[in-house]
């Protein structure tokens, strides 16, 4: 239309000269309250722990050493590999991977289905997916706990149907945590895949079908490769928060389902805490996330090239 005939230019002579002033509050606030704290956390991970929380400003590698090695109760025995914390990290990676795959399994067909609806109903479907995304994560996790606990509605239902003759004992298991993560982050998978499928040009699929390609081959060989950036974005949006999740392992799991988030939280609560160790665990978690994001960014720029 009249206004649309322009080049779509968004640079303006009005605000360009003061852009530094406009960006200053963001630089200052995020820099001061986010970048400096993360750097400080790195420093803390090399300090000596103070009993009852806090630190003594003496540099040491104790936190990272404790993470990897067991030196006995008094620290004077020859070091052996300490598996407890490594196990927690591996469990977190497996749980996050499992949750990502489950979300993909349900999320991709959902996103595809919604993106192929007529424009006016599409918005409603999408809205139904977004609502749980904005509902308090704590309340959602509590509601899963309520639903699957031993004498909760799910077990009552299964018992009444005669499908099981005693409660399933789901709560406080790795499976319950997996379910909780899957439930928490499912909308994160649907939204980016939806955005990619919505932009997908179905003329490709039609051309392939004219050449007698079977339907599922079209999906596998044409649709999925084209919408891959959306799938990867969805996987990252599920994997990253699952890896550092605290609520699902805390409310649905128990001592045997500890994840990184629970381990970190424990170091800052109460007197048993160990701040340098918590800082070190946070740094390791952050590095893992950064590695995932860097791979993603590299893939993006290669895609663009």
């Amino acid at each position, binding site marked *: 239309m009249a206004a649309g005939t322009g080049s779509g230019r968004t640079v303006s002579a009005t605000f360009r000269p003061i852009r530094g002033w406009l960006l200053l509050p963001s630089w200052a606030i995020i820099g001061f309250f986010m970048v400096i*704290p*993360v750097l400080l956390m790195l420093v803390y991970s090399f300090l000596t722990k103070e009993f009852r929380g806090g630190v003594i400003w003496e540099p040491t590698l104790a936190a990272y050493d404790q993470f990897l090695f067991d030196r006995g109760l008094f620290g004077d025995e020859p070091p052996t590999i300490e598996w407890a914390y490594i196990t927690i990290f591996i469990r977190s990676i497996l749980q996050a991977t499992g949750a990502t795959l489950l979300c993909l399994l349900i999320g991709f067909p959902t996103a595809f289905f919604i993106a192929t609806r007529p424009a006016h109903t599409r918005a409603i479907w999408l809205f139904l997916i977004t609502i749980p995304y904005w509902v308090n994560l704590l309340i959602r996790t509590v509601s899963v706990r309520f639903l699957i606990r031993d004498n909760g509605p799910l077990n009552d239902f299964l018992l009444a149907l005669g499908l099981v003759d005693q409660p399933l004992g789901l709560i406080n298991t790795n499976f319950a945590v997996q379910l909780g993560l899957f439930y928490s982050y499912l909308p994160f998978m649907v939204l980016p895949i939806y955005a990619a499928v919505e932009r997908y040009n179905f003329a490709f699929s039609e051309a392939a079908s004219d050449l007698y390609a079977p339907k599922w081959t079209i999906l596998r060989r044409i649709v999925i490769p084209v919408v891959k950036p959306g799938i990867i974005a969805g996987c990252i949006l599920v994997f990253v928060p699952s890896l550092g999740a605290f609520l699902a392992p805390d409310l649905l799991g128990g001592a045997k389902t500890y994840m990184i988030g629970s381990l970190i939280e424990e170091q800052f609560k109460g007197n048993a805490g160990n701040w340098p160790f918590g800082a070190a665990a946070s740094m390791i978690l952050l590095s893992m996330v950064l590695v995932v994001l860097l791979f993603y960014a590299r893939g993006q720029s290669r895609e663009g090239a």
Partner: protein
Amino acid sequence: MTFDVRRYRGFFGLTMLCLFILYVPLLVVMVYSFNDSRSITNWEGVSLRWYVDVFTGPESEKFKQAAWNSLTIALSAAIVSTTIATAAAIGMVRGGAFRGKSATFALISLPIMVPEIVTAVATLIFFSTIAFPLGTLSILVAHIVFCIPFAYLPISARLQGIEASYEEAAQDLYAGRWATFRHVLFPIMGPGIMSGFLLAFIISLDDFIITNFVKGAGVETLPTAIFGSVKQGIQPNIMALSTLLLLFSIALVTLSYFIGKRGEALQPDRGD
């Protein structure tokens, strides 16, 4: 031989399964919040007693204080972060190309990228090092930082759809910079700013992990109060309180959705 390349057998079923999974736990809690029973296990008929309990029961003072804290913090955090994000969006979108633009974008997105528990730990360590007292103010500061990217994204998306010609026309008519923003840009950006504000508000209202780390002793927001209660076992009054909070969030999201829709209708530049 043709078939509909948009339809796959089973996809509709999986979509329904997806919605079923997303909604069933929430609906179950809503239904059980009307249970007229002291125990959460047995169903003893419909009643509003736990809603009455939330407002007048033995824990009502705690809940009221927590709700007041949550609302004042969320409102202040949303106002401040939306203001900062609006300025940043204008600087980024209207500023053209400049050195450090992608670094600035990375900086603004940082609070979304970093796992929340890491942000929580880092913020706690920072506050404790500079001896910043933990309480309402520390929660507010942490929320402002965390909310900036959530406010920024819808606002900058909106601004990207608005051409600079409007501001230039205003300037040609001798409007100053502030007048141009106040009377020209702000009204067109309105829906984006409003949805950014609402998202920031919900994010702050719902936040548990960061709040739990930086709140200090004695100060509670609704999520931390609910978490504290749930650790002792899920009580029926918590289900009533959760239902209220849930409905409040849904109402806000619905509001944001319709504001966004109205914004699309008003969008001046979208010829297609």
